[in-house]
């Protein structure tokens, strides 16, 4: 039953100190005197070295009172200690001096207090000090001070093997001298008889913080032997006792520029939850990381393989080392609370474990948002917010959603007001995996439609962004498989979601169509708001590249309700983005057409027709100044157009007169003909200025427009009769 684990971090091998005293600091095993001599040659005049020499050479029994030498040297050492920290040799010398009681017990605490290591603490010195602890007559208060010091600098001790070897010896201090020997906390080697001894001691002494901490560690290692609940008041006792050293240490290290001794204090594993007020509902509290108690029930008798509970791991290195034999915690939900555990969650393949996690998560979400009749969600929205943020960051870390949050969302969307925790809910929503097209309408579209049409512009934008992210994730998922399998193999072979490639395509198509409908109506409702339009164009930037970027042989052309508002938008950015999207459509379609036969998929002729139609409209509109030509999408009656009194209405959306570009045209006109008084924009139409004008536009950063023009219009005919359409079916 004994569990032993190396709790130390990686040995701080590279912390060679830049301090002048510790040039050869790592040679802790070298005789102190030899080291001292070696240094004396170089720095014989350094008063600090002399002070150290004084402490190492001072005769036993030298009086303290009235001894100016001691005082002077002590002050020197303290000054160095608090400003730069002490080198390993200095620590050895001072510790030896203090613990050997060569000058009595008076100086002892003072020396201990200034033992601030600059880099590392030699193990040998600590072991020697423990030996002095056994033979000397050190007062209990000083012993405690010493132990506390060891605890503080524990992470900086250069090795721990010898300390571990004398574990039993150190343990004896707990029982015989009632000493706060929490030190063994770090070296723990659990034995049943020790648990008994500690429990006996506890019954004698009552609840002492040091015993508590020790026992709680035993609980981590042997939950089947001891159980314990730690009251919230005591939690901090263990940590605070060494604050003076800690702050001095940090100060020294800061000055040094080196990193603070990184230690995942085991104290933090005990219970790090702060629960300031008692909550009525506590389902949002992450469970604490605990190891499994009922081990005999779990492990099959035959397999006596040693497993390491996740609780006992404190660094990523340890995690990697023990990857093959990690035991999952008692409550899977606790994985969400620790970043280290999350790393492991990514590798968990055990279906039961994931189901446990999902049960817990689903329970928490349901209780908080669906079952709480008394407005529980709004009551503690701060906690709910944090919980969802945690969940979101977990899902982002794992790059996948949890099925329980998915199931929850399908229910919650029906009762959601669209404003409660909107960013979080939309974030969760964007993580849901592909829904079969037969279900997608009822589960997703119907509730979303209601929310979309009854909510503010900001919700509409948020939802567009969310659906774009959802589509991106679906497509990414697909592309991962497209890389692994041949395209024509149904996805079914590899995934447990029972979906064929055509099923996947159907779902994507449904989603894109749905967004197209939402976008069309949304733009109408919001008066073609350019913010909303921008989010919609984001979505179509994803859609137009499905084939080339994600390897999905599917091209869906935007509906007229999106195309025309973008084309006639009053801001040039939207028109530019539309041009870019059309350009990408063309590239995708051309590429798909060339691969169609060899890869056995089929892009509908209708898609080509739609694209060509839009391309013709765009070229006619922006380039050829031939608005409202027969055969185009918009064809108002002749009388109506005349009645509008717009002169030369057929030109009103070319690149010069388009409301989005008019200001550029004016600007260009002024630059081109600075002397002219009367402005005639039509003069830009002439062949030369026209190409200059285009150059001018492109130089303003309208790359989409540039790519569109370059791919659709052959410039030789740029004089105005350029025929744009180039793709035929």
């Amino acid at each position: 039953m004994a569990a032993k684990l190396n709790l130390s971090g990686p040995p701080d091998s590279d912390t060679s100190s830049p301090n002048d005293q510790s040039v050869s600091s790592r040679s802790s095993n070298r005789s102190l005197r030899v080291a001292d001599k070696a240094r004396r040659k170089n720095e014989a005049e350094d008063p600090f070295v002399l002070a150290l020499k004084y402490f190492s050479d001072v005769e036993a029994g030298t009086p303290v009172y009235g001894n100016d030498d001691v005082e002077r040297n002590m002050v020197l050492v303290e000054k160095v200690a608090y400003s730069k920290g002490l080198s390993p040799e200095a620590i050895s010398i001072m510790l030896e001096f203090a613990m050997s009681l060569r000058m009595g017990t008076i100086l002892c605490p003072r020396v201990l207090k200034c033992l601030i290591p600059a880099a590392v603490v030699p193990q040998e010195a600590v072991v020697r000090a423990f030996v002095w602890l056994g033979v000397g007559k050190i007062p209990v208060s000083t012993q405690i001070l010493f132990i506390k010091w060891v605890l503080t600098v524990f992470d900086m001790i250069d090795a721990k093997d010898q300390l571990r070897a004398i574990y039993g010896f150190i343990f004896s201090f707990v029982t015989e001298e009632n000493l706060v020997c929490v030190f063994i906390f770090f070296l723990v080697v659990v034995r049943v008889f020790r648990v008994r001894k500690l429990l006996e001691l506890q019954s004698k002494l009552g609840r002492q913080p040091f015993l508590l901490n020790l026992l709680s560690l035993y609980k981590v290692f042997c939950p089947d032997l001891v159980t314990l609940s730690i009251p919230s008041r005591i939690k901090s006792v263990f940590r605070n006792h060494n604050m003076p050293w800690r702050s001095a240490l940090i100060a020294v290290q800061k000055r040094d520029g080196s990193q603070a001794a990184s230690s995942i204090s085991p104290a933090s594993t005990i219970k790090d939850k702060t629960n300031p007020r008692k909550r009525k509902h506590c389902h949002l509290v992450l469970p604490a990381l605990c190891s499994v108690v009922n081990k005999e029930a779990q492990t099959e008798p035959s397999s006596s393989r040693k497993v390491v509970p996740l609780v006992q791991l404190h660094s990523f290195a340890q995690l990697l080392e023990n990857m093959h034999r990690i035991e999952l915690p008692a409550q899977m939900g606790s994985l969400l609370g620790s970043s280290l555990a999350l790393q492991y969650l990514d590798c968990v393949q055990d279906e039961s474990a994931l189901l446990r996690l999902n049960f817990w998560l689903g329970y928490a979400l349901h209780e908080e948002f669906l079952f709480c009749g008394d407005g529980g969600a709004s009551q503690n929205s701060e906690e709910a917010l944090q919980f969802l943020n945690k969940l979101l960051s977990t899902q982002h870390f794992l790059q996948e959603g949890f099925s329980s949050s998915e199931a929850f969302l399908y229910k919650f969307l029906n009762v959601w007001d669209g404003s409660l925790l909107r960013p979080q809910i939309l974030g969760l929503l964007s993580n849901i995996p592909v829904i079969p097209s037969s279900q997608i309408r009822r589960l997703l579209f119907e509730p979303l439609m209601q929310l979309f049409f009854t909510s503010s512009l900001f919700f509409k934008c948020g939802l567009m962004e969310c659906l774009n992210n959802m589509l991106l994730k679906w497509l990414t998922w697909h592309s991962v498989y497209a890389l692994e399998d041949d395209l024509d193999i149904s996805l079914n072979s590899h995934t447990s979601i029972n979906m064929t490639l055509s099923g996947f395509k159907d779902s994507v198509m449904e989603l894109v169509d749905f967004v197209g409908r939402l976008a069309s109506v949304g733009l109408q409702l919001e008066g073609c708001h350019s913010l909303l339009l921008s989010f919609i164009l984001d979505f179509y930037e994803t859609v137009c590249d499905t084939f080339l970027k994600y390897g999905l042989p599917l091209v869906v052309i935007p509906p007229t309700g999106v195309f025309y508002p973008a084309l006639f938008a009053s801001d040039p950015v939207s028109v530019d983005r539309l041009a870019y999207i059309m350009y990408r459509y063309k590239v995708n379609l051309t590429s798909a057409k060339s691969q169609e036969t060899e890869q056995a998929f089929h892009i509908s002729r209708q898609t080509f027709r739609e694209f060509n139609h839009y391309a013709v409209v765009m070229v006619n509109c922006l380039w050829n100044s031939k608005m409202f030509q027969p055969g185009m999408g918009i064809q108002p009656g002749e009388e109506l157009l005349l009645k509008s009194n717009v002169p030369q209405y057929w030109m009103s959306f070319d690149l010069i007169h388009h409301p989005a570009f008019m200001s550029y045209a004016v600007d260009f006109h002024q630059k081109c003909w600075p002397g002219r008084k009367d402005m005639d924009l039509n003069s830009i139409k002439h062949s030369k200025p026209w190409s200059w004008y285009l150059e001018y536009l492109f130089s303003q950063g309208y790359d989409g427009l540039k790519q569109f023009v370059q791919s659709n219009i052959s410039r030789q005919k740029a004089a105005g009769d350029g025929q744009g359409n180039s793709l035929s079916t």
Partner: protein
Amino acid sequence: MEKHHNSVTRTPLNSVVVQRRSKSKSYRLSYRSCLGAASRLGLTPALTARRLNTSRRAPKPHNITEKVDAEQLTLLVKTEWQLSYVTPLYQFRHTQLKSYSRQLSAFIAAEKQQGMAVEVEGPQKTFRVSFSLVQGLTESDDDAETVLVQIYSKPLFARQDEPQKPVWSGWLTCINGNPEYLGSLPKDFICLPLFGSSGAEGLTTLVKSWFQQSFDCCFGPLEISHTSLQWLMALWTNCHNEYSIQHLKMIWTLPAVPPLQVTYTVNSEDAWELWGSVRKGNRGGGGGGGGGEEAEEESSIDIEEVRRFMQGLQSHFYRHFRLDLSAGSLNQVSTALGSAKYSGRIKISNSRYMITTLTLLTECALLKMPI
């Protein structure tokens, strides 16, 4: 359904399968969407929109006294229970009850004296816990055996030789649980969705948190919904000709200012008569000509009948008091067979119809499952 999956990953030891194609493997798992056909729980709430059964068999008297230990049965019957739902228990073993008793009593002792460590194997002086099986209290093969937990303690100033008295009891059960749902769970989960407790609130909390920590499950409050209360009324009334329900009492709350509470008690004979009139087919007819089909018809009760029964009761009340009860909410029903409250408290007074009631409550508890 897909039990073969589990055999591979039953123990956590095998949990990490080192594979070359581990990424695709992890995708497979991650893609265990709640809609996927291979989803563990084929019966997803989102898809099937689980609802209470709209039709259920009429209660038949069960000779439960022959099957179940008398002492346990008395405890179950005489107490009013506060209900909760429980998500499936992971790694719960009916064979480990003794060890659970020790662990729980050590856990309670440790929690009660905050900050004192407690040895698990040592004898506990203040609280003694006993886990026991309630054998015979199952209906279908899928149901896990009911587990009874009792906590004994000595009063604070008791004499040395005074025996410990039961201070808390609770049980976990599953009666006629939805076989599809139960079947879809992996083997290492035991589904005992219905939890009843009676005793000090503090102990209930402790027991719950011990279960949560030991079996990675979650406890949530289980209300007995409006519809379930109506079902109970109908089911109990339906027993009247075999066992007198004596009275049918309902407590309604009406949304007036100040809130109006209405206690509505119906004579058992009148209730029975009303029930007879809303039942499909004429039950009062000649006994002989029925045959199998009619018996079948007779033994199932439809939600429509329950609704008509309620309407009858409500319109009767309206005729007398001009108060429309349907505007309010039903909070409590009671008959000689038992009583149930919206807050989730139930008392089953007669063991003969216990199974029927527990079946309904199990169904309610399963409806609350998050997945």
